[in-house]
């Protein structure tokens, strides 16, 4: 009954007026940026980090978490009405959602996306509540060698799940690890790669990198494309799905939730992968696969449930092991550090109010999202008419102010511009930047564990293979890499990403 007690503590924290308020702000902002194409949760969370300085840590984390899962709800609205993914996790929702909208069934599509997401969110929250504690107990028993191998597995998984070329993704991880070494060496104080710039002594802030690459880099790339939008607003009538819709959709919701939750826990996972996998699964097992792409409601229900379930369960590695599993979670690590909390398994026992407050707030947030979103869809649609030429200067201002206030440092703003250039180059060259950010956050932890472990074991690298836990992590990583290189699996993987 420890779980019940913990949840009680959590709801006690989450249901205070202050935290309810920040939860509401978080999910509303999340929906907003989810609806708007061209700005994602990574850039938004990075932008808002400085603004949360003044808040108590719990409120700050509740707010930031809300942005992430709120974005999954908002993304579907844009996908269905405009045939543009508001978020990358809604890419597959476009396929059938937009077709439904064209057939005048935008209402049921939006409703099933929201209801499916809510179901998935509830299940996701329960899974976090059930798994976080046992996993953190396990994590406390791990030594430096084991932790290093676990993080290595995380990076390999991030590579395996990235879009596009495998070797290129490995390169991005390595660049991320190098960026993580910038600054004073923790053990000797030696300055590394600082080029005499004093602001770099504490390392490159990952917010600077995130805003540069995900904020500025993407703005530049978006501006190149120009924009064409065709909004199906007039067709949002009769929100509620018919009986036959519900009958067709509920199994897809359950399956999508299961797939999404499972893939969300994986290191490197998150919301995006689950939505692809769930869609492919539905198409594969359907008796009428030809309906997909022509407005099949399962094609909306499954991926939308999966991305929300994945968004929730991707918090598990962060909360239980202190290891972020994707770029958004890497930012959450940053948020915790800013608020004086060292992420790791000990947080679970030292700050139960924080962890369980956040978990409880996620359930409340999901409820708020359903209650808010269905009636407010018209307002979100209105926002979609806001042209990008007005939107991007606004994002630019918010990014600049956000970076500057982080440390009151103009140098960091200039540095972010440099990373904007780098991010643009990466986008141009087809290099997916998300693994870089993850590696940059994991890098210093990994180097630390590696050095500590090697000192304990007198430089004997075979210890990585002698520790059973470490060996199994490394074998798993190797298996993952081999699996992707095997032609059959590679074709499937490309197919899954292609179908968007």
């Amino acid at each position, binding site marked *: 009954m420890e779980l019940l007690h913990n949840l009680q503590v959590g709801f006690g924290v989450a249901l205070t007026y202050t935290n309810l308020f920040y939860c509401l702000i978080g999910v509303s902002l999340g929906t907003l940026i989810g609806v708007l194409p061209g700005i994602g949760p990574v850039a938004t969370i990075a932008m808002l980090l*400085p*603004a949360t300085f*003044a808040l108590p840590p719990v409120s700050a984390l509740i707010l930031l978490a809300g942005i992430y899962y709120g974005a999954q709800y908002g993304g579907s609205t844009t996908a269905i009405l405009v045939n543009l993914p508001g978020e990358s996790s809604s890419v597959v929702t476009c396929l059938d959602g937009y077709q439904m909208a064209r057939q005048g069934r935008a209402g049921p599509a939006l409703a099933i996306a929201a209801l499916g997401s809510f179901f998935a969110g509830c299940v996701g929250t329960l899974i976090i509540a059930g798994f976080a504690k046992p996993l953190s107990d396990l994590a406390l028993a791990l030594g430096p060698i084991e932790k290093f191998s676990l993080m290595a597995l995380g990076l390999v998984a991030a590579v395996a799940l990235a879009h596009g*070329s495998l*070797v*290129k993704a*490995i*390169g991005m991880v*390595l*660049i991320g*690890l*190098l960026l993580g*070494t910038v600054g004073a*060496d923790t*053990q*000797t104080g*030696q300055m*590394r*790669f600082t080029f005499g710039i004093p602001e770099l002594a504490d390392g490159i802030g990952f917010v600077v990198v995130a805003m540069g690459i995900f904020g*500025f880099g993407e*703005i*530049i790339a978006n*501006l*190149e494309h*120009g924009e064409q939008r065709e909004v199906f607003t007039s067709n949002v009538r009769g929100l509620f799905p018919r009986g036959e819709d519900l009958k067709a959709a509920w199994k897809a919701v359950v399956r999508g939730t299961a797939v999404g939750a499972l893939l969300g826990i994986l290191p490197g996972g998150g919301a995006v992968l689950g939505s692809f996998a769930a869609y492919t699964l539905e198409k594969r097992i359907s008796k009428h696969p030809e309906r997909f792409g022509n407005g099949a409601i399962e094609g909306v229900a499954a991926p939308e449930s999966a991305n929300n379930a994945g968004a929730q369960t991707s918090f598990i590695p962060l909360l239980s092991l202190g290891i972020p599993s994707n770029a958004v979670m890497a930012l959450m690590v940053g948020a915790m550090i800013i608020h004086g909390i060292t992420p790791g398994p000990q947080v679970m026992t030292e700050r139960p109010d924080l962890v369980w407050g956040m978990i409880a707030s996620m359930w409340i947030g999901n409820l708020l999202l359903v209650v808010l979103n269905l009636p407010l869809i018209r307002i979100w649609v209105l926002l979609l008419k806001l042209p990008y*030429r*007005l939107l*991007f*200067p*606004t994002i*630019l*201002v918010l*990014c*600049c*102010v956000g970076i*500057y*206030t982080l440390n*009151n440092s*103009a*140098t960091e*703003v*200039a540095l*972010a*511009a440099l990373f*904007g*250039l780098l991010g*643009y*180059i990466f986008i*141009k*060259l*087809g*290099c997916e930047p998300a693994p870089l950010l993850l590696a940059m956050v994991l890098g210093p932890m990994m*180097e630390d564990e*590696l*050095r500590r472990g*090697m*000192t304990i074991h*007198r*430089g004997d*690298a075979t210890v990585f293979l002698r520790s059973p836990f470490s060996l199994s992590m490394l074998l798993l990583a190797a298996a993952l890499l081999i699996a992707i290189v095997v032609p059959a699996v590679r074709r499937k993987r490309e197919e899954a990403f292609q179908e968007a």
Partner: protein
Amino acid sequence: MRKFRPGKDFFAGLVYIAFGSAAVAIGRGYALGTAARMGPGYFPVLVGALLFIVGLVVAARGVFSKSERLKRLTIVPLATVLAAVLLFAVTIEQLGLVVAVLAVVVVGYLANARWRPLELALLAGVLTAASVLIFYYGLKLPFKVWPGTA
């Protein structure tokens, strides 16, 4: 023998090679230490060397197999967005928030193909006012607001 036309992979490989060799070259200047007592140079040099190798592989694949062609670079959005951000960095400390935000909005807006002066004026006004209200008065962040004042 077909003519070699470098594509995305080839250039990505070059970028990796550049990062990798820079890391090794600079990292060698820090104490390497031994495996049992790693110095500050050990990890960066190791990662840099790996990156160099990965870069070679990616570039080689770009030469020997067909990779997607690089799309044409458009300079205007790149130059204006970066210029806007750099202008903010240069002005924020000396001239304050109002000037810096105005600079970002006006220069950033240049990236648009069509100019609408009235719209720009309105946007700049709204964003500047909102920034001062939200960040200075609302969140009480320590900004210099106007040029000249403390």
